[in-house]
């Protein structure tokens, strides 16, 4: 058998032997960067370059798309988190606005308390408000008694009518059952103020004004010192604002009435002050209290001492 035929018969084995010998020779020599390897490297580099570029582009594309997905996902999560954070911050901001409003109200009340040394005031919180009747969070255990006056720094609110242990009911000027002795600040004309009794009207009425007395629209109505506690102390501090005259009704025969816009809207109250004790001022006790009035109205304030015949003479 010739060698060529033997090689053909055992071709695969011969190929194996050749490759193994060459490989072992290469491994044994440990030659890196030889001519053969450099040549193969060049061939591989050149042939694989377009593939690698294509692969790189595909990889970049995949990275770009996956990046978009990841970015979208992260952006979505971030937007969700921001939405939650925004809602939380809005809630906090609303709470802070509420606290700021409360702080401003309390500061005004504090200033009022400081400016009114003759009043012993108890700050209370309004816990219920229905049809001009307030429920406050102080009761008999806190020393609240019926007929105590309830005010704010802006004016009269109403009267305490019922007292429980820890709560009390305040009837405001919007309710028909609340009556307060009042006077026109400009000329000291007396009358009685009470609620008009309408759910749609926030006005109250000043009644029992003498027909001859001058009452003008825009006149300030304040508390008069007539109403007193059984102990002798006034229920209301005198001269305290009730409201402003809106219209005057002269249709009566003996008395006329004035419709008053109250100084305090009872439906917008969160905190009020209960007057525990009101000490009249020294000037008031001496009867020489001077009322500050604008100069343009001073002329009209002069008491009209003429007889009726003189006043209504043609």
């Amino acid at each position, binding site marked *: 058998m010739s060698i060529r035929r033997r090689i053909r018969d055992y*071709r*695969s*084995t011969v*190929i*194996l032997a050749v*490759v*193994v010998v*060459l*490989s*072992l*020779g*290469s*491994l044994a020599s*440990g*030659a*890196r960067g*030889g001519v*053969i*390897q450099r040549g*193969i*490297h060049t061939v*591989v580099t050149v*042939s*694989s370059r377009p*593939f*690698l570029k294509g*692969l790189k582009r595909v*990889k970049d594309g995949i990275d770009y798309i996956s990046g978009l997905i990841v970015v979208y996902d992260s952006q979505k999560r971030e937007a969700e988190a921001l939405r939650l954070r925004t809602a939380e911050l809005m809630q906090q901001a609303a709470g802070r606005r509420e606290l700021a409003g409360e702080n401003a109200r309390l500061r005004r009340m504090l200033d009022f308390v400081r400016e009114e040394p003759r009043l012993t005031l108890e700050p209370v919180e309004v816990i219920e408000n229905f049809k001009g009747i307030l429920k406050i969070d102080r009761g008999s255990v806190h020393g609240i008694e019926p007929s105590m006056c309830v005010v704010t720094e802006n004016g009269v609110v109403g009267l305490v009518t019922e007292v429980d242990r820890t709560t009390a009911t305040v009837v405001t000027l919007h309710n028909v059952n609340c009556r307060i002795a009042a006077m026109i600040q400009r000329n000291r004309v007396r009358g009685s103020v009470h609620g008009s009794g309408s759910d749609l009207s926030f006005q109250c009425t000043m009644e029992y004004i003498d027909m001859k007395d001058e009452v003008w629209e825009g006149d300030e109505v304040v508390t008069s010192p007539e109403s007193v506690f059984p102990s002798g102390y006034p229920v209301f501090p005198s001269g305290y604002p009730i409201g402003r005259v809106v219209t005057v009704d002269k249709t009566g025969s003996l008395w006329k009435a004035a419709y008053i816009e109250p100084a305090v809207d009872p439906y917008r109250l969160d905190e009020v002050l209960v007057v525990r004790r009101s000490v009249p001022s020294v000037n008031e006790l001496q009867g020489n209290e001077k009322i500050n009035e604008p100069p343009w109205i001073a002329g009209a304030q002069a008491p009209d001492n003429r007889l009726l015949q003189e006043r209504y003479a043609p």
Partner: protein
Amino acid sequence: MKKHFYWAFVVIATALIQTTWLDAVRVQGVVPDLTLLLVVYFAITDGEERAMFTGVLGGMYQDVASDAVLGHYVLCNVVVGYGVGRMSRRLLSDHPAIKTALVLCAALVHGILYTAILYVQKPDISAIRTIGVSVIPGAFYTALVTPVALFLLSRVFQNRKAVQGEAA
């Protein structure tokens, strides 16, 4: 001739993917050996000669790409290709599980041979640890992707009958 070019293209493309994209599916430092899979595939379908040439071409590419001394992958691939090619003649079943087991054995032999060459060159490496940590998991990983890879290769070469062992 066209078939040979096509074969060379597939081998180089596989080696290219092996050295570039397979990092994307690396699990615990282990990647499947697609070149070895190709060697086994050609050993089953075309016999040991084609498998050995596949091993030479793919192995050279891998050696050059990994900047190693020429011969590491070439030797391992050629030995495995020859062995599987000789063994595949005696395969009585064309069940995918048998082929998967064949790939598993081939991958183990390939890995052990490769580790042995490394050990001969650098005796300070822990051959047992390398086999435990890298070779065996790698062999299982390669076996895991075998059914899919063989299916794709059969579609690429339009030679299903050979893949199923009928030609052999």
